[in-house]
């Protein structure tokens, strides 16, 4: 079971509280996790990555196990701790404000 933490605005859109838990078939990568997330919560399509190009939106970042994975290839394996569910995959809105 993959654990995903969404920012508050996206949790509200998806009508979920707390972490999202997903079953991901095959290799656990950014792409496979986001594919599973969008399949279960179709209203999140287009909010994290572009509908067509699947590129990450500019003000969205990905973290896991204390590392910034935003610039890792979409098909690179995520850390084993994410794949086992020991650690969450975090979707984070870039910091803005003063």
């Amino acid at each position, binding site marked *: 079971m993959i654990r995903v933490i969404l920012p508050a*605005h996206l949790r509200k859109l998806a009508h979920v509280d707390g972490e999202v838990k997903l079953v991901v078939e095959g290799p656990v990568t950014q792409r496979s996790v986001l594919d599973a997330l969008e399949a279960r*919560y179709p209203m999140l399509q287009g*909010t994290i990555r572009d509908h067509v190009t699947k590129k990450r939106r500019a003000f969205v970042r990905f973290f896991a196990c204390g590392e910034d994975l935003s610039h890792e290839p979409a098909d690179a394996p995520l850390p084993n701790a994410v794949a086992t569910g020991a650690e969450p995959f975090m979707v984070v*809105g870039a910091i803005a404000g003063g």
Partner: protein
Amino acid sequence: MSGTRVLVGTRKGAFILTSDGKRQKWDVSGPHFAGWEIYHVKGSPADPNRLYASQSSSWFGQIIQRSDDGGKTWHQPGTPAGEPTTTPDGMPKGESNKFVYDASSETGKPLTTHQWYDGTPHPWEFKRVWHIEPSLTDPNTVYAGVEDAALFRSTDGGKSWQELSGLRGHGSGASWAPGAGGMCLHTILLDPSNPKRIFIAISSAGAFRTDDGGQTWEPINRGLHSLYIPNPTPEVGHCVHRIAMNPSRPKVLFMQKHWDVMRSNDAGESWKEISGNLPTDFGFVIDVHAHEPETIYVVPIKSDSEHFPPEGKLRVYRSRTGGNEWEPLTKGLPQSDCYVNVLRDAMAVDGLDPCGVYFGTSGGQVYASANAGDSWAPIVRDLPPVLSVEVQTLP
């Protein structure tokens, strides 16, 4: 007694204000979609309980929201109202926020670039929906004006959107350039006497009209004169801020251009200036009285860099002669130290008698007049900066 519902979009959410036909006491609901920019909320003329809202943010992009009960509950079209979508099987596609420019060879002349601020080619990039215009007759048909400028249409209640690509492809699209607020398609007027005719306006390309339901378009900018561009009278390139029409006379159009208030008596074929005695002819909003098609309203703004009322006095100007002769309307509006702006989609009129007029400010006030502008009062005054105001007259 009939009622009134005012739909307010702000920088940080939407608000809905309701009143009876007297329009003296108002209930405020909201913020809906708190924290998001709500560029526009508008109701269907064919079904007043059907509302559409454009919700966007720099972080998470565009969302379209729909209400089928007059704003009590909302959902993204294609997803169940207020329910989680928890089963993978048979789920609707999440495409209510998918605005993809038409690049097919069959339906248009695909354009890859428009002009950037410095005149260099820049790729078309979808940023947000500025304006939503529901069909006059079908609650499930709705138009969306977007940045970068294009017109989209949904015929399934907002579940999916298709570009009317003849607009960008009509020939001048590659020369369009953004205004300071972005290259937005901000005005959509549907002709009640001719379902094939639509008027739109783009900052800063100008006004366009289709007479075949959106397949082909022509610029309608003859008579516009823009001193701030190298050629002041081009076919396209004018910074039109807003166009308004009284439904009883759909060939008569009124325009607030960047500078200049303009009028057309021939569906945009030609324009004449009607700024007359206005203290400044810069501004954003313009609207027409619901029952008097020669009575129009503007809010003069000092200049294109000083986006506030002249002399710190918030004044709506009314012409009862179709332009040129204007009177300031000040009763109930702040007449000192007022430095707010009124953006292009932030004025509306209701259909009651006497006609109600409404506008919202960058300071978060929404002012209303229940007597066609003779006197005003804030019906809410401490909202986030107001982006848009629409009004529904309820049976």
